[in-house]
């Protein structure tokens, strides 16, 4: 029997507001333990939460960017459980009435088609603190700086069918979060976390199999690895005519396996109920339109515009809109040199190649967009050859100097003066009588040899098109 995996992802993304969700404490990462705390986030008796409007605004941005419905009213609820990193004994979250529902995200499949992934809900909640376990003593320390840092949970429909799809969805989600400026989406630092609900069913079936929830997926690679592992594990169980146990599993990145954490019977009963300390959150249409107005052009919209306005291939547009900074870079280049495909080729080839090799992102790019555009302009005008352009590009990346300066300093301007080129050609012909003989005897391939000799003599500066033409004329065809 052929099986099909069914995957849904729950993503927790930290929102980069400057203050916490229910108090005015700073959200800055890396401070001395328990210095960004106050009676509210410490859960002191008598303290009360007050909702940070910025958190709502940021979540609304995400809701609009993922095509969600925003009900007129949502509610905060308490999720009750005991843990030392949770000072109130409950986490303020949203449960029955989340801020956003029924959204979707279109992702690119490998075959070039697009697939729509449903988003069940997005809700806001507060993060818990951090436990630091002493290595030598049986003692744990509690750091509550992170307590109350705003999180947004994005729950997908079980629409994903492979680890690769899950990876693409997750990367798209992160790209949007960064694009609209509400979070940094850093998985390794924990500001972007993911749990995966995975089940297996016979291909073609329309009922769901028993699912497991896998936690501790702390990198994109691990998400895909864990999903692949879990698919294989469940498939094996089913092929053995066994039954998958509904449980929470933990990814062990060291061993590369998922391990049982707790069964359904051991699952927490969180005793959710509406938080009486916070009023129902009313989202007026006015607010939604204000957020909509401030929302930047989204990746999908920009990609479409690149295809229609710039007439570049959809593939190029997809790469160029993988981050807002890259898309801005591209458009910035076009202001100086408006040949969209030409610019896109260079960005996707040389520029991204360079950044990847150096592990840099476009924000740290040493070459200013106007300089790259200037370089392409020089090339286009015939002032430099393609080969020289590569040299200049490398020089630009290491020195940050503008291309014209490099060309001038190194005397790299292309030679298009017929008399100079003819002089060099005459010298090459005089020095290579044998080759001239063979060429005339029909070995026309030797033209490459002559071009090479001329180019070498001119240190690559001769206009190669002219060299070709003049050579043919002199040697006769």
């Amino acid at each position, binding site marked *: 029997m052929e099986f099909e995996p069914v995957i849904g992802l729950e993503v927790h993304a930290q929102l980069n507001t400057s203050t916490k969700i229910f108090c005015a404490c700073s959200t800055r990462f890396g401070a001395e333990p328990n210095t960004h705390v106050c*009676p509210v986030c410490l859960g002191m*008796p008598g303290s*009360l939460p*007050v909702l940070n409007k910025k958190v709502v605004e940021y979540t609304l941005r995400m809701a609009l960017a993922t095509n969600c419905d925003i009900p007129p009213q949502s509610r905060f609820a308490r999720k009750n459980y005991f843990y030392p990193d949770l000072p109130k*004994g409950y986490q303020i979250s949203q449960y029955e009435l989340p801020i956003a529902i029924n959204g979707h995200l279109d992702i690119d499949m490998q075959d070039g088609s697009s697939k729509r992934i449903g988003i069940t809900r997005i809700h806001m909640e507060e993060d818990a603190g951090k436990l630091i376990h002493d290595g030598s003593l049986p003692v744990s320390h509690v750091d509550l700086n992170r307590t109350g840092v705003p999180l947004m949970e994005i729950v997908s429909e079980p629409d994903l069918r492979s680890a690769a799809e899950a990876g693409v969805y997750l990367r798209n989600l992160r790209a949007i979060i960064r694009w609209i400026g509400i979070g940094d989406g850093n998985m390794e630092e924990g500001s972007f976390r993911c749990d995966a609900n995975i089940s297996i069913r016979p291909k073609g079936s329309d009922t769901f199999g028993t699912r497991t929830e896998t936690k501790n997926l702390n990198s994109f690679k691990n998400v895909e690895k864990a999903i692949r592992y879990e698919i294989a594990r469940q498939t094996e169980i089913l092929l053995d005519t066994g039954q998958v146990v509904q449980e929470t599993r933990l990814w062990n990145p060291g061993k590369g396996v998922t391990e049982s954490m707790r069964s359904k019977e051991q699952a927490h009963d969180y*005793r*959710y*109920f509406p938080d009486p*300390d916070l009023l129902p959150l009313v989202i007026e249409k006015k607010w939604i339109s204000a957020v909509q107005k401030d929302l930047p052009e989204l990746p999908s919209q920009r990609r479409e515009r690149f295809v229609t306005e710039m007439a570049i291939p959809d593939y190029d547009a997809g790469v160029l809109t993988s981050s807002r900074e890259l898309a801005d870079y591209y458009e910035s280049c076009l202001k100086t040199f408006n040949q969209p495909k030409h610019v896109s080729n260079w960005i996707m080839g040389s520029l991204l190649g360079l950044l990847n090799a150096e592990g840099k992102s476009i924000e740290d790019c040493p070459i200013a967009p106007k300089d790259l555009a200037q370089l392409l302009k020089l090339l286009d005008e015939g002032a430099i050859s393609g080969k020289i352009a590569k040299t200049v590009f490398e020089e630009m990346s290491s020195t940050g100097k503008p291309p014209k300066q490099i060309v001038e300093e190194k005397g790299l301007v292309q030679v298009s003066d017929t008399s100079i080129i003819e002089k060099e050609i005459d010298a090459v012909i005089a020095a290579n009588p044998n080759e001239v003989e063979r060429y005339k005897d029909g070995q026309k391939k030797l033209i490459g040899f002559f071009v090479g000799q001329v180019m070498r003599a001119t240190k690559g500066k001769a206009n190669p098109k002219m060299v070709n033409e003049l050579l043919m004329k002199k040697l006769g065809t």
Partner: protein
Amino acid sequence: MQLHTLTISEAHDLLKRKKITSVELTRAVVDRIEAVEPKVLAFLTRTFEDALEQANAADKAIAAGKITPLTGIPLGIKDLICTDGIRTTCGSHILEDFIPPFDAFVMRKLKAQNAVIAGKLNMDEFAMGSTNEHSAFQVTHNPWGLEHSPGGSSGGSAAAVAADMCLGALGSDTGGSVRQPASHCGVVGLKPTYGRVSRFGLVAFASSLDQIGPLSKTVTDSAILLQAIAGHDEADSTSVPNGVPNYSACLGRDLKGLRIGLPKEYFDIEGLDPQVASAVKKAIDTLSGLGAQTVEVTLPHTEYGVAAYYIIAPSEASSNLARYDGVKYGLRDKQKTELLEMYRGSRSQGFGPEVQRRILIGTYCLSAGYYDAYYGKASQIRTLIARDFEQAFQKCDVIAAPAAPTPATALGESLDDPLAMYLSDVFTLPANLAGIPGISVPCGFSDKGLPIGLQLLGGHFAEETLFKTAYQFEQATEFHKKRPPL
């Protein structure tokens, strides 16, 4: 002149005319506490040194011409209200040594007026109880009959005011915890509209029901105290931005044309003491004599009130009290080295039986599979009860009722029967469920000489109507002038 017997408004008048100083007044109150506190046991923490300093500051302010109605007035505070630097126990071992690093909103308001704080007052643990016998530390005695309970949970506050150990006090009312002890101790107790007074710094019992309210010797003083503590607070999302009216200004208005609603369900309740029924009926006659008309109203869901309340309040409490886990502050069972054992040990030692009972009830009611049948249903009943009041207040301006079905119970009487204790809240807790204000004013005495209170309920933000009615009643009667035989 015995300064401790003064009301707030009387003392203010003397302070203003520089006939007395706040230090004199505060010393008199301190002396009074030292004299009668051994019999009453209303205080958990005395703050006499601070009080005398505050009195000094108040006298300086007065000398500089800065006097407000509470400047230099010695008050007591229920030990559920956070006081910066002064331990706030909530009547519980789990917070026995807890010193808040901040003042409650109401404390900031009182301090801004240069009020004097004599100490923190006893209460049933976390405000759970109607007799003060559920305090982890001591049992407060009713100044009118020392073998009797002062009521609860703000029993310490009511007893302290009745025994002249402070000129006024703050309590909190979640299901009647201000009005019932006021009734039992022969003082005035007000539960404001939900949201009228900020809950910031009030340690939560049941957040959707809790409201801070004043206990005082007269209605005038009640209005002064509410004036001081009411108002919007951005730190409490449930506090309302509505402007605060001048409560004292309404006191002199007459009652002509005032419609007093008499809910038939309230007077048919089983267990209503005939002496209470008769005192309340006489009080209603007095109000009629002052120009009010009576109308019969109906509150058809009254019989479900106690059941709904004793699901909603413990449910919220089970969550609100989860923070007392021994990790950050408060009592920790240091014998236990394993986390779960430490939680169990700390909470079992830290919480008394009534609190544990309510945590268990609440936890059960919110559990998966039970939520809809209990918490969900109770929330629906709550809506119906609120609607009952809305409809009743279309026919009347205030509702008159007993504050409690009986006068104060003898100490020890209700300890074995939590259900009987819960049922005694039948007249007070509907106001909390509906979020409306209620006031209790002295309206008689039982044959044992124990006070009886008349409860008046109003619509949302109808505190002025309550004050006016209670004030006119008070002026027409002598009950508030009688002092307990201490």
